[in-house]
């Protein structure tokens, strides 16, 4: 899936991945890739700004640690983040349900 298609959903996906527990950036992106069966195709470096934005808006908190001589930043969901995830997940369920309802009733165009 292209980055453009993911635009607008990335925040929800990141919050969902972090609902399992605290993760550092690499683990977040890795989980995102695994859970989507490698369907999400984004330059990994561009995911970090979304994490930073979520952190700045209070959805995530972070802490630094040192692992193997490298500084590592670990993110976790805040109470506000949990609330937002619940709301956004509900909104997505409604939206995708409505889309599916429409698509199920539609006649698919033939390609030949």
């Amino acid at each position: 899936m292209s980055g453009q298609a993911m635009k607008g959903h990335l925040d929800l996906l990141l919050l969902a991945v972090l609902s399992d527990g605290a993760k550092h950036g690499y683990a977040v992106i890795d989980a995102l890739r695994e859970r989507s069966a490698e369907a999400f195709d984004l330059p990994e470096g561009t995911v970090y700004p979304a994490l930073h934005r979520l952190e700045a808006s209070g959805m995530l908190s972070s802490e630094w640690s040192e692992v193997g001589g490298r500084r590592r930043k670990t993110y976790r969901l805040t109470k506000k983040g949990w609330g937002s995830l619940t709301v956004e997940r509900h909104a997505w369920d409604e939206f995708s349900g409505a889309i599916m309802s429409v698509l199920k009733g539609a006649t698919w165009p033939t390609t030949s």
Partner: protein
Amino acid sequence: MADYLLIDGYLELLRSHLRFRSDVDDLIAEAADHLCSTHDRLVFRGTETLEAERIALGLFGQPDLVARAMSGSPSGGLAVPSDSTIQAGSLAIWGGVLWLFAVVAWWPAGAIAPWGELDRNFTAILWIVGWCALMGALVLTFNTVGALHTRHGGLGRIGTMGMILTGLAVIAGMPAWVFLGWGFALALGLGLVGVAAFRRGIAPRMPVVTLGAGVATGGAVWVICSRSTGWFPRYTGIWGETWTINLAAVTVAAVVVAVGLFGVGAWLRGEEPAGFDLTGSLATTIGRAEST
């Protein structure tokens, strides 16, 4: 990171794109951790190390693309040199001179006058001159702390606390005999600013350390000498028995702080003001900062 040839080069390029962000070190540290984690995982699976670096960088994205994306995320502030920080650099050097001048003025009065070998009026003049120099030095030290804060785009919570403490200590230092804790507040304030600036890693670290630790070093000298059993000379007349200890501590503090001010001042003064190149990530960042 000596083991990552391509990744190091990439991170340097990314740093140059993001150099005007106050959180550049954190951004680079996070990118480095990600790239090295990808690399290490690939090598563990049998990929050759240079190829693993190439793959890691390919997955991460082009440095200009990543920098552009990162420029859009919130930062603490712009960490840019400006005309005011450059001027503050010159003033910091003058601050260092005044610290030394205060000590030079006090030494004859402090070391000789208690034993009555200097004219009383001359001693009084030396005291007043030294005190005025010290007050000027304190004000210029606070100005330098402010310039460090500005140049780093903010020094975070610890640095801000340090700035406030330093400011209070400077104000309290004027009538020091009323507020006895001013020296301690100054040591703590400068120490906190030093820690914050050191962690940000934009200013050269050695002068930051000396500026931050100077007054505390003087305090340590005072404690060590006051606990000495005979090896440090003491004066026992009307000037108080800790007089020689005070003089030694102030001298050490003044010299170390002055060295720090000279270093920080030379660095600030030697920079080019930002604004000469408003392209790329800087323009994006400034545009964002101005729109908020």
